[in-house]
């Protein structure tokens, strides 16, 4: 075992320790070295891409899937830190805040590599506990306290369900190693107890992903939490959920009980999320319901379960965090005094801050899934993978849902470009414009040239389904 293979994790752990020391010194505000260090963390994750190893008694595995997601997680963390860098005067963004964010991201990184169910559960809890502490951090705001309590209670209940399911899996299969579990049968006729347990265990990750019956916390928490926290909660934890679901979905083949459950939940989730989003006025609630819908789209790839489907799910989560981070970047900048922006706050954005309106337009077009953005490419891979496995009805539901979602995504663009308001112009520093511009360009670039990143995702998929 060479320690260099763990560079992405170790780098983030080092960052966390440095933030810990900074918080002990009672510093306020974001440390000035943090953006640079997290940027180097992305570089470390890039260097770690070719690492392949099995370590720690075969519970921890570095493979194409885990390294791909570690890159995404470190990138997302760096972007959230970058968003926070523009808010130096904010009281809540202390080193402690970033330490907890980092710990949560670190837990997700470990989660990406875990190939044993108990280890996986521990890593999941590591990332959740930091979020429980982060969400109520919003000055004296009561909505944040409410959001925090909702998140904890919902999380505790779902965790209990997942652990109960885990006990069934252990009772039926006598092992918790994913490699050994994948080798056994997962049809309901052969192992009813284990299939029931797996469904319950998956619920823990559906909660993180905000899939339909577990999505009730999502809009409330986004609305209550700080804009920067919401930007994190809406993007990075979903990566952790997707990576575990991809690993577990490799157990089953299409048209089995578990796969059909995934497909049905996905279909209901897209429909419920999109219909609820139609009537939202608060931007963060709107994006919350949109993330419920996107969780449904990811299920297309997982239900397909083939190598192509799993790679499509991994690739879509990349597209998802890119376009959501771009959208949340606009939300964070438009918000006055850190309050929740509504649709009306976007009025006249094309005059007040043309660059921001452009970034918003790119993000919205990507969220709908229109070419030439990352959203389109991601959806194309998902739909073709599901169609190949005979989930025709699911593909039809997904396409109809895309049509529904056009209304509210482009509603944001309509407000930004055709709404009029006499609000003063937003003054953006050059760094902020470049930062948002890079995000928007990445959304377009991944849409136009998906091949290099899709190859990485495809490597991850074929590793699980040779």
């Amino acid at each position, binding site marked *: 075992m060479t320690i260099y293979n763990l560079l992405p994790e170790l780098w983030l752990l080092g960052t966390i320790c440095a933030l*810990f020391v900074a*918080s*002990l010194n*009672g510093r306020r505000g974001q440390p000035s070295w943090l953006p640079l260090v997290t940027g180097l963390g992305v570089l470390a994750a890039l260097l770690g891409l070719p690492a392949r190893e099995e370590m720690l008694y075969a519970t921890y595995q570095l493979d194409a899937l885990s390294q791909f997601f570690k890159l995404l997680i470190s990138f997302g963390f760096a972007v959230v830190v970058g968003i926070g860098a523009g808010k130096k005067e904010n009281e809540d963004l202390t080193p402690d805040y970033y330490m907890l964010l980092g710990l949560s991201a670190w837990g997700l990184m470990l989660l990406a590599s875990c190939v044993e169910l108990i280890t996986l559960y521990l890593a999941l809890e590591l990332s959740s506990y930091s979020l429980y502490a982060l969400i109520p951090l919003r000055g004296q705001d009561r909505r944040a306290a409410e959001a925090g309590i909702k998140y904890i209670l919902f999380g505790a209940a779902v965790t209990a369900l997942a652990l109960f399911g885990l006990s069934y899996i252990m009772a039926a299969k006598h092992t918790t190693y994913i490699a050994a579990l994948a080798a056994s049968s997962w049809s309901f006729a052969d192992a009813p107890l284990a299939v029931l347990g797996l469904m319950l265990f998956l619920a823990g990750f559906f909660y993180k992903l905000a899939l339909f019956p577990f999505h009730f916390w999502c809009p409330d928490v986004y609305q209550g939490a700080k804009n920067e926290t919401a930007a994190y909660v809406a993007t990075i934890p979903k990566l952790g959920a997707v990576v575990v679901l991809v690993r577990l979905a490799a157990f089953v083949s299409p048209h089995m009980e578990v796969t059909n459950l995934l497909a049905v939940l996905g279909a209901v989730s897209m429909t419920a999320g999109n219909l609820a989003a139609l009537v939202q006025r608060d931007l963060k609630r709107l994006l919350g319901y949109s993330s419920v819908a996107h969780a449904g789209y990811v299920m297309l790839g997982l239900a397909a379960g083939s190598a192509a489907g799993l790679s499509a799910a991994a690739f879509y989560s990349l597209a998802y965090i890119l376009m959501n981070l771009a959208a949340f970047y606009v939300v964070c900048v438009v918000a006055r005094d850190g309050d929740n922006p509504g649709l009306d706050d976007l009025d006249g954005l094309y005059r007040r801050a043309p660059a921001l309106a452009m970034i918003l337009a790119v993000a919205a077009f990507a969220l709908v899934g229109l070419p030439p953005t990352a959203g389109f490419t991601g959806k194309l891979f998902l739909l073709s993978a599901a169609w190949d496995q005979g989930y025709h009805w699911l593909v039809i539901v997904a396409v109809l849902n895309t049509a529904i979602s056009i209304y509210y995504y482009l509603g944001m663009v309509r407000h930004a470009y055709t709404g009029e308001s006499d609000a003063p112009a937003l003054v953006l520093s050059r760094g902020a414009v470049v930062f948002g511009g890079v995000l928007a360009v990445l959304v377009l670039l991944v849409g136009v040239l998906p091949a290099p990143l899709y190859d990485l995702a495809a490597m991850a998929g074929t590793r699980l389904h040779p």
Partner: protein
Amino acid sequence: MVFTWLQAAILLFFLGGVLFAAGPLAGSLLLAPKAKGGALAEAYECGVPTHGRSWVKFGINYYFYALIFLAFEVDILYLFPVAALYATPQGPGATIKLLVFIAVLAAAIIYFMRKGVFTWPRRIHVATRP
């Protein structure tokens, strides 16, 4: 049906059990002094009359103390299985793992200390809500 001494004994013990549970309840119902009125209907009955309403701000230092104590107590419990393992020599690897665990706990103590949780305030401000 044959009724043996064994069955009689079981019945007797059953009766004895019921009496053992119900007797004190019935005894207290019959013998105990009865109190009515006064502070019995108070939400928080401790023998001292309460001041003001319950919606006041109060220092939560003690709760921090108690919760942190509880958390550390549970963490220290994890050392018991380790101690059981040390009946046989474990080598330096196990010791280093143990030290890492204790170092993380120590870091948490330092964190709370620097945040002022262990500095007991001289005076706790109790402000009533207008």
